Every structure is written in C-alpha cells, then in structure tokens.
C-alpha cells in the first residue's frame, strides 16, 4: 500500500475535534485543556488559555450570553449544562487587578490601523500588536470599549481593556474622527465603526492603497461575533502581509463560519460520575465537565491503551515506521500487537477499522524485509505442518459423486481436542447424504504473519479441494476459519457448525448431557464469543439456542465478542500484551463454577490455561466435554493432528493417549528423557517443542557436542532451529558401564532429566 494511504484509515476520526461547547463558541477555546487545568487547580495556567482566545477575559465573560451551555452534552443528557462562564470567572477573579505579562515580539515593518475602538476593533488591534505590527487605533469618543445595551459600566470596560493593552505596544488616537481613509498612513486598515458607523465605501479607490477589511457591528455581527471578526481580521491581515503583494487597494472579506456542534458527540457514551471529594484546589464545577471526546476504540483495545495512542497518531506512526531505511521504527510493536479482533471497528461511530490498517501495515512491513522472522516463525511452521502430508487430508464419503457437505473442522480443534473432530463429523454425517471432510488450515496464520502470497496459495488449495468435492456446502467448526474463508471464497456457501446443527436437529439426537454430571439446567454457562464471530452474529445466537436446548443456563444472552489474545498471533512479538488480552477475557470467570462455553478452540485453550472451567461447545452439545480439561502441550498438539488424519483415513483409533504411545515407540530403546511438567509449561510459553529438546539431547549424546558443568554435574547443549537457538540443560543418571563413563556418552538405559530449556533469537558466530 502507498504510505500516504494509511492516513486515509483515520481520516474520519473526530477525536480531539472541538466538543459541542467549543464548537458553538465564537471564540472557541480549548475547553478540554482549560478544564483539565481547572480540575488540577492550576488557575493561572487555565487563565492563559482563556486569555489567548477571549482576549479581554474580564469583559468578555461579563457580556457572553453563554452559547456553549445550550450545546453542552451534559445538558443534553438532562443533567444540567456545565457552567463554563462561572469557571472562567474564577480565573478572572484570581487575576483581578494584575497587570498582564508583556509580549516580547520583534517589531514588524508594516503598519496597521484600526478605525473604531469597540470590542471588534480592539480585538483586532490587540492581536495585530501581539504579532509585532505597529498599530494605531482611531476612536472619536474618549473611552474605548464601545457601548453596551445592558448597562455595563463603560469606564470599567475602558479601564480593564486599557490594562490588558499594557501587554503590547499600541497607539490610541482618541477623540479623532477619520473623515477619509486618505488620512491614514498604514498598509492595512480594519474598519469597525460599529452599528450605523461609517463604512468608507464610497471613497475613490485612490484614497487608500492597502489592505482593507470591515467587520463587527458595522457588518451586522452581534457582540461576540464582532470580537471573533476582529481576531479573524488580524489573522487575515497578517497572512496577507506575510506574502508578497503588489501595491494597491485590496478589500478582503471576513468569512463568518456556521457554528454548530458535531452531532456525533451526543451519541457517545459518557460517565456522568463526579468525584465524591473534590481535590482541594480544584473547582467543583470543573468536575462536572466530561471533557467530551471520542475514545470508543481506545476503551476496548488493550493495544491502544498500552501504547497510549489513538488512530490518528497510529496511522502517522505507521507511515514513519514503514519509510524505507528508517533507523528507529516506533510502530513495530503496534503493528505486531494487533489481534485483528475488530473491536475498534465495532465500537467506532465511524466504523474505522484499525485492525485492517495495522494488518496492511504488518504485511507491508514483512514485504519490506525488515520484520523479524522470529515473530511468526512458530505458527508458520505449525501451519506448514497442517498443510503437510502428515496432517492434511480431503476425504469424500463416496468419491464417485459430489459431496453435499464438506466439514472443515479447522486446524486448532483437531490439535486441541482431537476426538471432538471425529465426534463432530459423526454427528454431521447424520444430516448429510454424501459428507466430506477436509483437514487443513484456512491460511489465517499466513495472513496474520503478513504473508500475502502464502495466504493466496492456501486459498487456491482450498478452492481446488472444494471443487474436487463437487462444490459442497462448507461447514466449519472454527469461527476464525469461517471469517477468513468467507472473505476469501465469496462463491462458497459457508456455515458455522452451530448454524448447521440448529438447522438439523437430527444431529444432536436428543442428547443433552452437561458432561459434568450435574443436572443440566442448574449449570451456569457463560458463552465466550470469539472476536472472529463478530461478523457472524447468527453463529452466536445458534450457539445460545443449542446450549439452551441442551439444558444449560446461559448467563449472557447477548453476544460479547472479544479477543482472547490468540488473534493475530501477537504472542511472540508482544507477550505481555497477549496476556492482557487473555486476562481481560478471563477476568470474571477464573476460579468460578461458571462454565466458560467457548466455540473457538483457541479461546477454550487460553481460558483453560488461566484457570477457567472452559469447555468447547461442540463437546458440550455432543455430551463429551470434561471438567477443567487442560489444553495439551505443544508437541501433543501436532501429534493429535497426525492422529486426526489417520483416524479419518481409517488407519487408526483416536485419542491423545495414542500420541503418547507412538512417541515412546519412536524413541525405541533410546535413553529415557524426562521433562518435568513445570518445564513443559515454560517450554510451551517459549514455544519450544518437546521434540526439539529431545533432538538436541540425542544429537549431543551421539556426537559428544556438549558442555559439562562440573560444579552442578550437568550437561548443556544447544542447536539452532529456524529463527531460534535452543539450549537444553540436563543431567544423566545411572551411567553403568565403564565404557560409557570413558566415552562420556550416556548409556542406553540411563535416565536423562532435563533441568532447563531456554532460547534466544540472535545467532552465535561459533567455530574455532
């Protein structure tokens, strides 16, 4: 993707745009920042914010009609608008009578003039002076500030504003009536002569040869809008004078924008809570302000929270990170940490899809060659295994005619709960005429790794098998497969297993066992909706319907899609973030009696690891689920897939015990290698397979290529597997024969106990 296209993803994000109060305020100041400071009790700093926008805060807060209050979100919710003016007043009172700080700005050459010292002219003069222009204000009266209808003391206004002007250098020519613009010598003039004032329109154009603007009550604006126009005029003059222009008269218009609140702010969800105790210096009213802003995506995304970044910043960081030859790629962990759960998209009022954005970025990052292969190597190998002869198989009941249904269990179900695959297929067969089954991977690991081409290869392979089976309806037990295959194969009819089961009551055959032995009905179940199910709400409702029919008591009738941390295969790049996802998902069900009914095998495994009674819905529906079944260790997962294939091809009986026996047989006669369970847990976390440790030991024992640690009486050996170097520390017991002792090799029959296994990614330059 072109780098610039990344920013398009977040274009519609309205975070940090003015909240309704500021949007309708003619002098729009940074309300969020103002309130933040007021909550902290930093009144002086808060004052600076309003002074910058309101120019003459003491006067403005008196005359402002409080337009913001009509727009305030809190007010619209019915809880009373936040009284911003009273907060402004606190600042004003605090600074009362104090002279302003002086601006130290280099003086500019071009001179400016303002006709009329009402608020509009004064605002313009003040702003221009603060930019450094020599300014002269002409006023026919003896007081500045103009006239007010509601009896505000003119002398007070005059004094307040005069004091404010101590901050800048500005000349006042009082009691001076300007008869013609020819009397003025300046490069720019702002005419703000007030309601029914002189517009200087009919003069010969030769009378003044500079920039000319009109505004304020002269052009029909109300008081607050007049102030705004004065400021806009100053900005327009400044911009014009900063660019080169030809001499001559030039009249500029001041645009008066439509001021309206962004409706989207009213639809966000807010926390109306106010702290029970207001911090000592904080202003109570400030705590009623919610500093309205959108954070809908951030609130549901552990990734954004971890990096403290919102979509706009994320897209700009992506662009920086993907630039060729970057030496610091700040967004790497962000690219690698997105689970593609889609939660941000679902939460966003604009449906901004940061998952898609980060996925594209990850693919581009991979293609640039800068991505560490270690991040996804494990799963790519796992996928390669699924796709290999050892595990992949298409089986069609009757090969001579097209299959009507193709069962696609997904690679994780057969790895984790091998007998479920067979049982699920068995049940499915009752509802079809010529069933087929494809044991394969849907390719999503390739997608998650950013390998677009490989993903495409797998898509083709699946399509070919589907064609071979006679284009049957595909039924999958894995929500990730469902999501990925639906997008990849638009011409396939694909259903979730649960949807299909709901449509075919003959499948469950009246079985409604809870598996735990408790009477169904008293068993509380929380359905764990996987993130990948969000685009398929019918699946979530089918699962609930089936479980209810089976007699379970569901405590969350509404789907709650969320990621368990497995999505995107983020684990190797950002393990801590993976754990945050997992912890959030397990929060309320760890160590309770509630059954976590997962219909994604990965959710089931991750929740079970973390101590929840997590069961796969298929097992619950078919009456074969067990209480608190531990997920199998990594190498058994692979073995289970081999068995699933043999099973299907009719070569073997099923069960993971089989895996064990087979392994022992393979080791045949060789020294026994013991790996304590605790260490297996660690290896699982580090994604090191038992076979790899065993292979290292066998090699070391055969070649003698190992280190002996005399102190602890143990051996150390290592080997590089793909992107990692794995180290094994082990002891050898019962070395019986003298020959064995001499050679230093373990005797067959001796026991090897593995004490530690660890790995690193950097490659050692070994050799003499």
């Amino acid at each position: 993707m072109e780098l610039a296209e990344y920013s398009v993803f977040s274009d519609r994000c309205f975070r940090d745009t003015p909240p309704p109060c500021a949007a309708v305020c003619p002098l729009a100041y940074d309300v969020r920042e103002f309130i933040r400071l007021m909550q902290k009790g930093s009144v002086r700093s808060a004052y600076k914010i309003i002074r910058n926008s309101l120019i003459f805060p003491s006067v403005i807060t008196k005359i402002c009609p409080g337009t913001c209050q009509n727009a305030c979100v809190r007010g619209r919710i019915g809880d009373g608008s936040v009284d911003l003016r009273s907060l402004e007043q606190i600042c004003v009172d605090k600074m009362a009578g104090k002279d302003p700080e002086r601006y130290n700005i280099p003086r500019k050459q071009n001179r400016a003039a303002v006709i009329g010292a009402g608020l509009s002219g004064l605002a313009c003069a003040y702003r221009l002076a603060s930019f450094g222009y020599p300014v002269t204000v002409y006023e026919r009266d003896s007081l500045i500030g103009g006239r007010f209808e509601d009896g505000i003391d003119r002398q007070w206004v005059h004094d307040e504003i005069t004091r404010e002007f101590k901050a800048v250098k500005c000349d006042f020519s009082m009691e001076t009536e300007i008869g013609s613009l020819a009397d003025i010598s300046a490069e720019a003039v702002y005419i703000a002569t007030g309601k029914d004032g002189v517009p200087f329109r009919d003069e010969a154009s030769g009378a003044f040869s500079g920039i000319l603007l009109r505004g304020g009550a002269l052009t029909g604006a109300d008081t607050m809008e007049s102030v705004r126009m004065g400021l806009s005029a100053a900005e327009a003059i400044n911009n014009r004078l900063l660019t080169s222009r030809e001499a001559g008269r030039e009249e500029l218009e001041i645009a008066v924008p439509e001021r309206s609140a962004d409706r989207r702010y009213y639809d966000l969800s807010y926390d109306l809570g106010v702290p029970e105790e207001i911090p000592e210096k904080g202003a109570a009213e400030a705590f009623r302000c919610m500093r309205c802003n959108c954070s809908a995506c951030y609130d549901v995304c552990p990734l954004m929270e971890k990096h403290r970044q919102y979509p706009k910043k994320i897209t700009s960081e992506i662009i920086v990170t993907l630039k060729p030859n970057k030496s610091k790629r700040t967004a790497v962990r962000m690219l690698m940490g997105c689970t593609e759960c889609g939660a941000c998209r679902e939460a966003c009022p604009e449906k901004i899809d940061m998952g898609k954005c980060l996925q594209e970025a990850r693919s581009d990052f991979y293609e640039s060659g800068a991505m560490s292969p270690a991040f996804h190597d494990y799963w790519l190998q796992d996928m390669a295994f699924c796709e290999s002869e050892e595990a992949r198989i298409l089986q069609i009941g009757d090969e001579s005619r097209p299959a009507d249904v193709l069962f696609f269990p997904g690679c994780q179900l057969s790895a984790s709960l091998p007998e479920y695959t067979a049982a699920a297929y068995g049940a499915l067969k009752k509802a079809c005429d010529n069933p087929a089954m494809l044991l394969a991977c849907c390719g999503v690991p390739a997608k998650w790794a950013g390998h677009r081409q490989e993903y495409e290869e797998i898509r083709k392979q699946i399509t070919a098998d589907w064609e071979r089976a006679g284009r049957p309806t595909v039924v999958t037990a894995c929500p990730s497969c469902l999501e990925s295959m639906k997008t990849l194969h638009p011409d396939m009819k694909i259903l979730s297993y649960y949807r299909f089961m709901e449509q075919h009551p003959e499948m469950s055959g009246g079985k409604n066992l809870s598996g735990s032995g408790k009477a169904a009905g008293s068993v509380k179940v929380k359905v764990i909706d996987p993130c990948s199910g969000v685009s398929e709400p019918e699946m979530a409702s089918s699962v609930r319907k089936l479980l209810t029919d089976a007699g379970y008591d569901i405590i969350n009738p509404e789907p709650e899609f969320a990621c368990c941390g497995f999505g995107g295969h983020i684990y190797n790049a950002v393990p801590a973030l993976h754990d945050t996802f997992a912890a959030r998902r397990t929060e309320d069900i760890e160590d309770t009696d509630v059954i976590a009914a997962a219909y994604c095998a990965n959710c089931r495994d991750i929740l079970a690891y973390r101590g929840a009674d997590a069961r796969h819905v298929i097992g619950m529906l078919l009456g074969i689920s067990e209480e608190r079944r531990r997920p199998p260790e990594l190498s058994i997962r692979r073995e289970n897939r081999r068995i699933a294939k043999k099973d299907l091809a009719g070569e073997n009986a099923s069960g993971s015990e089989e895996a064990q026996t087979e392994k022992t047989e393979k080791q045949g006669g060789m020294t026994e290698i013991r790996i304590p369970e605790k260490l297996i847990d660690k290896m699982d976390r580090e994604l090191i397979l038992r076979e790899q440790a065993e292979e290292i030991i066998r090699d070391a024992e055969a070649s003698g290529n190992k280190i002996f640690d005399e102190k602890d009486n143990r051996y150390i050996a290592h080997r590089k597997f793909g992107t990692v170097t794995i180290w094994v520390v082990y002891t050898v017991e019962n070395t019986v024969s003298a020959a064995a002792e001499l050679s230093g090799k373990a005797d067959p029959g001796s026991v090897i106990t593995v004490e530690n296994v660890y790995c690193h990614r950097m490659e050692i330059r070994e050799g003499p």
Partner: protein
Amino acid sequence: MKCCKCNVEMVEKKTTFDYLGHEASYPVLRCPVCGQAYVPEELAAGKIADVEKLLEEK
C-alpha cells in the same frame, strides 16, 4: 565448564552474535579448540533479549 568433545576447559572470549543484519558482541565461554559456545540463561533472557528487542525495531 568443559567442552566434552575436545575435553578442554572453556575460556571467556568476546563473541559476535548476528540478528536481522546487525551484530552485537558479548564475552562468553568458548572452547579454545572447536569454538563451541556457552550462553547462560541470564545472558539469553537478559542482555541478549534486550538487544533483540531493540534490533527488532531498527
């Protein structure tokens, strides 16, 4: 620490590690004859892991 293949005591030597086209070096025990190295877990999980993280973001 002894290299079992060469049956000699290992000695500390500055050793180069490669990752993602960058290199870093640490003193580790090496066999003076065949060059076999020993990377203890403290080093793998400590300094090496830290540098890996840095290089992954380069």
